[in-house]
């Protein structure tokens, strides 16, 4: 075991864990942030997406040691009151069905909007191509990303 220091949603966390432990395990089982979901465990579905130093990572395959000294943001930390434009758009358009993939969808979309505030439909599709939704809510996801970007008609 090694003590690793990681800032999670603005709070410094000292983690006494195996450095090879996937970041997802540290977030859910050690810190107790269960908003990020376990889907495939192989970086294939996107349910586990969080931000590490502002970049998207799939926490199910990211060793927690990669986050040491860094800053992680999970769905719980995206906005202090759940009022991020994407979260508002998600509610207004009733995007989720079962909801399991939605944290990963929103976190990927949030990274996109942070770098491209007015993405085209093609850019939305490229960025979210690796976030699977077994309920098939893709049209509503895209519409919500557009809405959050202030681009409801698409491009």
């Amino acid at each position, binding site marked *: 075991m090694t003590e690793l220091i990681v800032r999670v949603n603005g709070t410094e966390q000292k983690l006494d864990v195996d450095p090879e432990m996937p970041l997802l395990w540290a977030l859910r089982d050690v810190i107790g942030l269960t908003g990020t979901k376990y889907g495939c465990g192989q970086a294939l579905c996107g349910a586990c997406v969080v931000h590490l130093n502002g970049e*998207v990572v799939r926490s199910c395959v*990211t*060793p927690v040691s990669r986050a040491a000294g860094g800053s992680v943001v999970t769905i719980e930390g995206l906005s202090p009151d759940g009022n991020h434009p994407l979260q508002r758009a998600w509610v207004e358009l009733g995007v989720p069905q079962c909801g399991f993939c939605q944290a990963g969808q929103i976190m990927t979309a949030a990274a996109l909007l942070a770098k491209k505030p007015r993405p085209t439909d093609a850019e939305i599709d490229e*960025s979210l*191509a690796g976030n699977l939704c077994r309920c098939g809510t893709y049209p509503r996801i895209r519409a919500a990303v557009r809405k959050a970007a202030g681009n409801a008609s698409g491009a």
Partner: protein
Amino acid sequence: MIPKWLHLVAICSLAQAAAVLPACGGPAQETAATAPVALAAPPADGLRPPEAFAGISDPSERSRALFSEMSRVMLHPRCVNCHPSGDSPHQRDAMTLHDPPVTRGPADQGVVGMECTSCHQDKNLALARVPGAPKWHLAPKIMAWEGRSAAALCEQVKDPARNGGKNLRQIVEHAAHDPLVAWGWAPGAGRTPVPGSQAKFGALAAAWVEAGAACPKEEARR
């Protein structure tokens, strides 16, 4: 009426048979002198060492043969999958398109939300079966190797405009020591490694340059 070009073919054919007209392809004696040197079959690891080419006395011929051997590594799916001619990498020995669907993006490192390093770490992940190595990324499009012959690959590798601005010495260094190149020999369980070893590949590259960095002709490898 017989066209003029057919006369020339006929004359050359006769001249070659008589070994008297070098302009038509060289006399029979010269052809015999440059007959291909028989190479031993590749060893168990699939890659001949530079010494296997020592019997080729002509440096240019030896250099061409050395690069052909190097191309066994460079045109292997482990290498070509991330040197695609399109905007998406490939995967597996069958070189199918990468799944999940990713695109190269402006810096050959994916697009926002789907960067290469969103999933790939600096090492292979045994349990999740995600391959990884330091600085995992796609080769730029100008360095595409997909569909290349050994001859075309060689000309490309020597061209600084298409090799990342490297000179021949840097090419050898890259072949022998680059950590991402090294991944080809240690791609993780379930993936076929490229032939030989990085040390042998680097030695082949050094020998190729030493012999003149000649490029193979458009013909099959021996």
